[in-house]
């Protein structure tokens, strides 16, 4: 019992063509910018949108192929939406019981099961409330209980945390992680937030412009991003170039020294915290020293994230104190330096 999906949908000018496979108990995150087609894929998996082609199977059951489309209400699945979508006219308990009632469970046992699930998500005693009387985090927990109550084979999560404020998000994310670990079926999570994807998923698929551009474990994707979008998400500077030994000639001009020898087309990834800035050319061991212009700076926690323009465009994190002491303003001429051993290089 596992999900295999090849989804082909045309949405206006965007052609979505995505292959997904999820094992039982596995959580797959589909990560991508807005408009990349990731929610479209989720709607197809849910049966809310008939695909233009492809095939969706769960275990031995065919949910979608060229001749057959199983409508949403006949699919054993649960779905959690971004803004919970709890039915406003029903109590929280009846919301959770809804999926049991539609599948023929009588009112009393359905309510009892719903009550049990409310307890599991930490909402015991909230059953009589209306959804509008719940906080954002509580509503999202109730929505999770509603999705899981029918013991679905496939759980779909559409940006489940993005409507929550930062603090609630942390706690709900941790709880969600626990519930996902207990869930025996396949889970597909759609998100544009890398932190959600990294924290919750066993495997990440990055979708851009309707196609999969990268796939791997969260650690792999975070360390070796393949596209600018992913690099920006995980906070890396990504520089395409051509390697020859321990020197990479960048496509945009400039040269980067790396510790591990490589050959041919490569990607060079630099973490912002490994980049040091100087007002005059530094002497010393780093082989990578480049002149650059400070293009912009934004506060980023206790540091300031500096965007550098030049032959080697980089992002550098410096402490707020250092930023102030150096008197950096946009347009300032600086020297950027990074150790060759801190630079990741991998084939394109």
């Amino acid at each position: 019992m596992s999900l295999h999906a090849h989804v082909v949908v045309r949405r206006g000018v965007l052609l979505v063509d995505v292959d997904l496979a999820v094992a039982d108990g596995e959580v797959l995150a589909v990560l991508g910018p807005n408009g990349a087609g990731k929610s479209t894929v989720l709607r197809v998996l849910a049966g809310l949108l008939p695909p233009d082609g492809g095939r969706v199977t769960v275990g031995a059951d065919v949910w979608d192929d060229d001749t057959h489309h199983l409508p949403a209400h006949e699919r054993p699945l649960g779905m959690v939406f971004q803004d919970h979508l709890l039915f406003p006219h029903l109590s929280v308990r009846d919301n959770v019981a809804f999926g049991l009632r539609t599948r023929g469970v009588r009112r009393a046992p359905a309510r009892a099961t719903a009550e049990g699930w409310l307890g599991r998500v930490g909402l015991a005693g909230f059953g009589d409330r209306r959804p509008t009387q719940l906080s954002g985090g509580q509503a999202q927990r109730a929505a999770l209980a509603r999705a899981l109550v029918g013991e679905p084979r496939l759980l779909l999560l559409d940006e489940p945390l993005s409507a929550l404020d930062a603090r609630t998000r942390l706690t709900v994310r941790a709880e969600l992680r626990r519930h996902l670990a207990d869930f025996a079926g396949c889970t597909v999570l759609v998100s544009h937030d890398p932190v959600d994807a990294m924290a919750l998923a066993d495997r990440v698929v990055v979708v851009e412009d309707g196609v999969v551009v990268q796939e791997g474990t969260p650690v792999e994707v975070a360390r070796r991003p393949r596209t600018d979008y992913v690099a920006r998400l995980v906070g890396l500077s990504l520089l395409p170039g051509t390697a020859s030994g321990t020197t990479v000639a960048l496509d945009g001009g400039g040269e980067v020294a790396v510790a591990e020898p490589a050959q041919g087309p490569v990607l060079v990834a630099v973490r912002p915290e490994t980049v040091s800035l100087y007002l005059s050319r530094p002497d010393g061991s780093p082989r990578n020293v480049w002149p650059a212009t400070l293009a912009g700076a934004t506060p980023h926690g206790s540091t300031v994230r500096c965007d550098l323009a030049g032959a080697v465009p980089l992002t550098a994190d410096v402490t707020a104190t250092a930023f102030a002491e150096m008197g950096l303003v946009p347009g300032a001429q600086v020297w950027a330096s990074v150790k060759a051993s801190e630079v990741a290089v991998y084939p394109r």
Partner: protein
Amino acid sequence: MLPLLGLLIRAPWSDLWPQLTEPQVGQALRLSLVSATLATLVSLVLGVPIAWVLARSTIPGRSVLRALVTVPLVLPPVVGGVALFLVLGRQGIIGRVLHEQFDVTIPFTTTAVVIAETFVAMPFLVISVEGALRAADARFEDAAATLGADRWTTFRRVTLPLVAPGVAAGAVLCWARALGEFGATITFAGNFPGTTQTMPLAVYLALQSNPEGAIVLSLVLLFVSLATLLLLRDRWLGRSGSPVT
């Protein structure tokens, strides 16, 4: 407001009671209330599905359907009455079949009153419900589908409760319009006390012979309309102001 004030000022308050207790008044009022309520029920049964089709489905010919449904809004009611007569009258396209095959005659009966009122008043309901359906978040229906609800269950247990305030508002408008219906009724159903003479018809007739009686009847209509609006506003329509999400 001024015409309504005029009505209040000119009202023969002294002999209001004898005027009101005349049997013709009670008869006309009862007929009006019954036929307007029946017309509203018929409109609900026919109009809510039509509104759903207009708001949710993607079938071709939707714009034609919408035009057909809303025509009675802009059509002079008398013309509507003539049209109904041509279709359902004894010599009409459908009326002849009904008369010859089933011995059923529609014009100049209470049924005709209800049909005429439905014809004129249903667009108010359809437009109101369609608006409510469009304003309601269709993603609730998606959520219901992922919870195993087929279309009918979704409509019954999710869509309808969500748009209930809109349906109530539409029903009130529809009922009020049916209560005041004159042109189509007098054309298609005639003006027979007890069977087809509704309040507006009685008012018009009284104005010819007994102006004071017409004022009294008008006051009754005014009172019934206002009372209904106020009553329903508190019980149902007040809820439409509360957040739906």
